[in-house]
């Protein structure tokens, strides 16, 4: 029974951190793309 609780806590701890980290990395890649597009549009206008 203790093994089950230890496993669940490890999943909560590392699962929570890595899921959030993955979400941030995906948003980072997305935001970099958006920033490049906006900046290239400004350069194009100039």
């Amino acid at each position, binding site marked *: *029974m*203790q*093994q089950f*609780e*230890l496993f*669940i*806590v*490890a999943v*909560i*701890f590392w699962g*929570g*951190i890595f899921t*959030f*980290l993955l979400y*941030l*990395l995906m*948003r*980072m890649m997305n*935001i*970099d793309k*958006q*920033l490049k597009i*906006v900046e290239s549009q*400004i350069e194009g206008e100039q």
Partner: protein
Amino acid sequence: MPKNRLIFLGVTAAVSLLYVYMTWIFAPPDVNLGELVRIFFQHVAPALVAYGAFGGTLVCGIMYLWKGDLKYDILGAASLKIGLLFTTITLLSGMMWADATWGVYWNWDPRETTTLILWVAYACVLAYRASISDREARAQFGSIFGIIGFPMVILSYISIQIWDTLHPQVITGSGLEMAAEHGMTLMVSMIAVIMIALILIDFTYYIDSAQEKIHRIRMARS
């Protein structure tokens, strides 16, 4: 990615591996709790780091209201998000601990209840921030509510001293009341979780700053 950030990521990965080793292999089973002591290392560090993150939100809120610089608001919001993440981990791991040691997942213990109220309070601040479209108003109200919410952190921390509770009191005025190996593991867990939190705050700050920049460029062009 800048070189400094990569080095910090590498060091954090190494410290995290040491933390995993110490939690699961180095730390011996406790005399009373047995193997369940390992939950402790994944519960206390996130709790203390969450308190620290909310402290960061408080400081950034004060700095924003004082200086009026949006970077403090963005940093405070990033700190709030990470504080909420670690409070969620604390609540869930605490529930598993409670089930294993007290026989129930939730028994409205003062520490459980005040931490839940803390989570709800800061979740409301985050939801409120998301609901305001005006950037300056969001920063002002977000900072004010970030400051108003902080006494809840203090109440959550001292709840086990002012009310009768089943929650173990490990950190006392006379230091850590645990075996030396467990104390060392707790220290490493604190360092690892602080470093992880700093990385998450840094990434969140980077994303939100870039989002802000894009928003300003689009507003200026339209």
